[in-house]
């Protein structure tokens, strides 16, 4: 290895990574072992924050809310994405317009999409309630956010609407990377379309599917904006995700130590998911 400017070239990035990533990463562990409250007491108290967290009902509630949300929203994103990708695979004007349309909501913010859906579903002036009354499903405007399950379903629908295009584009990239020669060869060997899909397309596109799935699961775990805006965590905290809880403990209750402890637990849970992301994404290839 001859001498070159490589290190100098990476230096600014290294500094940024050390200060704004590596240091906070150590710090979150350090703070999680501390009593650190608004009055300014800072002292090491061992695993107390973790023990307290495990005894807290709200922690388990927020964690299960996040899990329920992930389980609900993943198929809602993934199945339409897969269907759309398969239907819009071939390149023609109609398909490319449709792909663009399906991707448009992916470029808007979660704040925007949440307010868009809040307005559609508004109990007194929302157009959805008007249609439902018109069609005779309900007699008067419903407040969709007043019951846990309808609130959850609404959040999932709005997020699926906003994000399924992203998974679709991912899967399309995987599908289009399969060489047409393979299909031609299979056809010559007498392979029908259905067989070709299950024996060629699916196995070859599987890594991409897995990556799209992992990305979507990781995104759901980190969900925060949509909950804050659409329900504020209500009713009775039943739609409060783990990130909102971390945030509340830190910046409303000013219990930095305990918030750090919950963050560490969240980090450990997510590490497995994100490790798969790195592995499947081929981000690190040893060449």
């Amino acid at each position: 290895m001859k001498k070159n400017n490589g290190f100098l070239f990476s230096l600014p990035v290294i500094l940024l990574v050390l200060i704004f990533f590596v240091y906070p990463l150590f710090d979150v562990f350090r703070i999680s072992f501390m009593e650190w409250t608004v009055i300014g007491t800072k002292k090491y108290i061992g695993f107390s924050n973790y023990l307290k967290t495990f005894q807290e009902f709200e922690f388990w509630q927020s964690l299960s809310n996040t899990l329920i949300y992930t389980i609900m929203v993943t198929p809602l994103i993934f199945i339409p994405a897969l269907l759309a990708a398969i239907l819009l695979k071939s390149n023609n004007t109609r398909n490319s317009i449709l792909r663009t349309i399906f991707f448009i909501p992916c470029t808007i913010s979660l704040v925007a999409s949440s307010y868009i859906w809040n307005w559609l579903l508004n109990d007194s002036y929302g157009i959805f309630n008007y249609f439902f009354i018109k069609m005779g499903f309900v007699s008067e405007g419903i407040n969709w956010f007043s019951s846990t399950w309808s609130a959850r379903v609404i959040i999932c629908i709005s997020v699926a609407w906003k994000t399924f295009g992203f998974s679709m584009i991912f899967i399309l990239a995987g599908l289009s990377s399969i060489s047409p020669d393979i299909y031609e060869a299979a056809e010559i060997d007498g392979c029908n379309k259905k067989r070709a899909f299950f024996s060629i397309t699916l196995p070859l596109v599987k890594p991409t599917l897995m990556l799209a799935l992992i990305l979507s699961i990781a995104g759901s775990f980190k969900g925060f904006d949509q909950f804050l805006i659409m329900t504020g965590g209500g009713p009775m905290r039943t739609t409060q995700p783990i990130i909102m809880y971390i945030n509340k403990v830190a910046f409303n209750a000013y219990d930095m130590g305990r918030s750090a402890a919950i963050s560490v637990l969240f980090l450990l849970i997510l590490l497995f998911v994100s490790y798969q992301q790195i592995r499947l994404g081929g981000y690190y290839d040893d060449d």
Partner: protein
Amino acid sequence: MMTIKKKNITKEIFVYLIFIILSAIFLFPIYWTFITAFKPSAEILKYPPRLIPATCTLDQFNKLFTAGNGVFLQYIKNTVIITIGTILLVLFIIIPCSFSFALLPYKGQKIIFILVLSIIMVPFQSLLVPLYNLLTKLKLFNTKIGIILIYSTFFMPFCIFMMRNAFKQLPKAIYESALLDGAGDFMIMMKIYLPLCIPSVVSCIIYLFINGWNDFILSFIFSSSDKVRNIQVGINLFGKERFTSDWGIINTGTVIAIIPTVILFIILQKYYVQGMTTGAVKE
């Protein structure tokens, strides 16, 4: 012969009809917010709601921009400054870094690369407390610079990955022959490699723009005054505190938040999609 043709045409019409209906339903939520922003206040709350507004007006925009001494314009300005600042800083530091990852091996480079990638693995949502702690210590809490530095750190790994791949795809012989001609590393990067990788740079810019413009949680936590808050936090503040249930103002703010990213995407979608799907397919 005729019947086959006729059948095809009916089928074609049918497919297009489904296609139009599907797109209309899919885009209806956005359409509904758009036309609400152009309705006069009285019509917004009218029942039954009108699918096509009877009158179009800019009243809501007027209301939004004059509310609270034009604080919404301030939010837009903050967002533009923070987003452009992030794009400039990230490009400035990641281009040489990606170049070194692709062509200039040094001792410990692997560790640095893994470190950068681990940023993708560790969600910034789990580092909110220590980052708050750090910003306060550096006196950067509630400053645009503080937010730019945090955005840059957490949005850059994907760009580094994208740029490194772009540099790596070019033949190494270019570098070696330029070196023999006496060009320095920096000159080779700027004059030869970078011009060939402009599409990837564009992808990075769009990625950073959309991420910066659409961010909510980081701005929400690391800013505490209207001088720093971004447009997303501003909309939420309007919707939750200042103009609760004034749906004219909320929808208008939403429209303004949507327009830049959607337009950018539609114009440059090829680059954006290429950038997004880096890593989707292993080569």
